[in-house]
Every structure is written in C-alpha cells, then in structure tokens.
C-alpha cells in the first residue's frame, strides 16, 4: 500500500513541478543550479536535480521557456532560463487553474477530512 501511495503522490507532483518551475521563472530568470537549489528549498515538492533538468528541457522544447548563455558575475558563463511570451501566458492560465483547484481542495479537505 505504501508503494501505491508513493506512486500516486509522484503522479500529482509531476504536474505541480512544472508549474513550480514556471512560477519561479516568472519572478525572474535563473540558471539550472539555482533553480534546483531554490526548488529544493521547498521540501514539500520533493524535487531533485534528476526531475528539474529533464523538465527544463521539455519546457524549452515546447517553447514555454528560453535559455541563453550569459556572462556570470562570478566564474564562467552560465545558461540562464526565462519565461517566453507563450510561457508567460501559459503560467497565468495555469496559476489561475491552480487557484481553482486549491480552493476546491481546501473546501474538501478543510472540513475535518483528516479527522
């Protein structure tokens, strides 16, 4: 049963991580290691480098984010990611949908569901 729970959790986290990356880049551009590090700061998301990089690659392929090598203030150049115009639109739509979901889930879970 523990296994089933795990796979169910990872199922719904997958979609959330995508939104999390878009949300992070909505605040401003960031490089790969920075994205991994900042998302890892939210243990509830359970994100590792192994999930972030393939997702970045997929988001880039679908045109929601762009990447660009730029000189970094310290050390060698870095590949920075940022939202594309399409990604910005997608993020707004997704964030709105997410609000609807959380409102609904708050209601459903809030009425002493854990009791």
């Amino acid at each position: 049963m523990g296994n089933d729970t795990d796979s169910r959790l990872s199922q719904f986290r997958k979609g959330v991580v995508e939104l999390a990356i878009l949300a992070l880049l909505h605040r401003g551009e960031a490089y790969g290691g920075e994205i991994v590090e900042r998302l890892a700061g939210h243990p509830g998301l359970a994100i590792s480098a192994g999930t972030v990089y393939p997702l970045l690659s997929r988001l880039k392929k679908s045109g929601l984010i762009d990447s660009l090598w730029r000189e970094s203030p310290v050390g060698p150049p870095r590949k920075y990611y940022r939202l594309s115009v399409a990604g910005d639109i997608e993020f707004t739509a997704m964030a709105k949908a997410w609000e609807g979901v959380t409102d609904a889930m708050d209601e459903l879970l809030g009425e002493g569901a854990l009791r």
Partner: protein
Amino acid sequence: MNASKPEPARGLTPESAALVETYFARVHGALLLAAADECEETVEDLRAHVYEELSTTPGTSADVTRVLAELGAPEALAAQCAESVDVPPAARERESEGSPLSGRVLGIPYELRLPTAGRVASRWWDPMDPHVIVPRVFGLGWAVNLGAVAVRLGLIKPDDEDVPFASVPTRWLAVSAVLPVLVAVVLGALVVRYQGTLPAQVAVHWGITGAPDRFDSKEAALILPVVMTLLSLVVVGMAWLRRRPPLSRVASGALAMFLCTVSVAAYGQQVATAYGAGSTEVLFSVMGAGGVLMFVVFVILARIGRAAEMRRDLEKTSKRGSVR
C-alpha cells in the same frame, strides 16, 4: 492493435472517416520508413484527438480537411515525431511501464524491445539523469551512464547542451567516427606484423592468475576480434548514412571505438602470451585505455558543443549590447 482503435465511424460519413484513416496510414508509412516505431503511441493519441475534435463538428469532409490541416502534411508530422523520440528525455523512456517487454525480474531490470540507436545512445550519455548505473539497453542488468559520471566529476553541467552534441560542428562529430577506424587500422597492422610469427595454437582465454587456460588455432582465434571490429564499424557507418541525430552518431562511434579496442586488447594479449608474457597486463591495460578514451570522447565533444552554444548566445547579446 486494431482492436484498440477509437470508434472511427461515429457521427462521421464514410468519406470523412476514410480521409482520416488515409491520413494516418500515410503517417504510419512515413514512420516505418523513418524506423521510428516508438512514435506509434503518440500517433494513436493524436488520432483519438482528431476524432474527438471531429465529434464536435458535423463531421463533413470539409471539417476533416480543416482539422487535419492543423496537423500539417503526414510526412512532416512523422518526421517531427521521429525527431522527438530520437533524443528522448531518458527518464520518460525508462518509465515505459505498459510494455511487458521491459520491466524487472527479482529487482533486476530487463529490456527485450529491440534497441534503437536513439535508445542505446541515451543510456550511455544522459547528463540530465543523475543515475550512474542505468538499466541496460538490451538484455538483463545495468549499464553505465557516462553523462552522469561526467557531471559528478564536475566536467560538465547537466544542462550544458540543450540537445546532446546538437551544436557540435560536423568536423568534430566526425572525429568520433574516425577514431574506431584508426583503432581498426592498428588491429590490421598487428595482424599483418604478428599473425605469421604466431604458433599454430594460441591462448584465447586467461585465468585470474594471468596464465592461459584455453587455446585455439590461431586462425580461429582471429575470427572474433575481426568480426567484432568490422561489425562495430558497420554500425557507425549506418548511423552516419542514415543521418541519425548527433547523439546517436557520437555514441555509436564511441562504442565502436571501445569494441575495436577490446579486439586489439584480445589480439595483443594472444601475441604477448605467445611471446612468453606471464600476465594479462596487455589485455587489461589496453581495454582500460579504450574505456577511458571512450569517456574522453564523450566529454570533449560535449564541451565543444557547449562552447558552440555559448559562442552563439554571447555573440548575440554583445551585438545587441552594441546597438543600444
């Protein structure tokens, strides 16, 4: 497979349904030509999607033509799809839960789907996957993800290249194909130089102590190294002739170079033993060198690709800067 087809005719005239089926038959044909059989699932999804779209329309031929026009020409669609599976996000590839042809027995992964160039390549070089030990491309057990090794050693970052080796200039990609040929030439030279001087029986297997424990005629002993070398060169040739994506070409070259080196190592050890060597030093040092060289080829090409991407972007930004 036909059994799982979405209900085609509902609400559609036979002519409209035939239009859709013809379209997907052409996609299917183009996929077969591109040897991109892994796309089938995506294409099935797409077809279900088309019928879904059509169910909200009167379903006339004009509607069908309009919906299909959005997908573009069937050949273009197939090409696009083939491209996307050739460089698969390896994680998704590895998940392939549905098929009974791949999975785990007693916790050990197995893979019985025939390997495709893209799948082989993405197991050996997938810097975005942090796992060093990954399931084998074919058979039972695990393989080494050299991309993850390079990341752990700090030689590259996981996202240095958008698509592995895609930005590497062709002349550098060609190096990965020339190297195995060079190693094969070394084998040829060794055979020419030593085959005549070998005794009729040579060692073909060595025990842990380094002493030979199996012998064969020198002609028979030559077959395996030569066949392995030629086969691996054929694989590289095919990858280039069929214009596989850069990752497939580099991986086939690097693997071929390793296999050719193993051949040289085996033949070299036969010669060394015949000349009185008491250990298997030649075998292991040459094989080890081959393995290291293979890794070095991957890493150097990845860094050339990164440099090319970097140059492209930095030039762009500096130009923009000067306009301002």
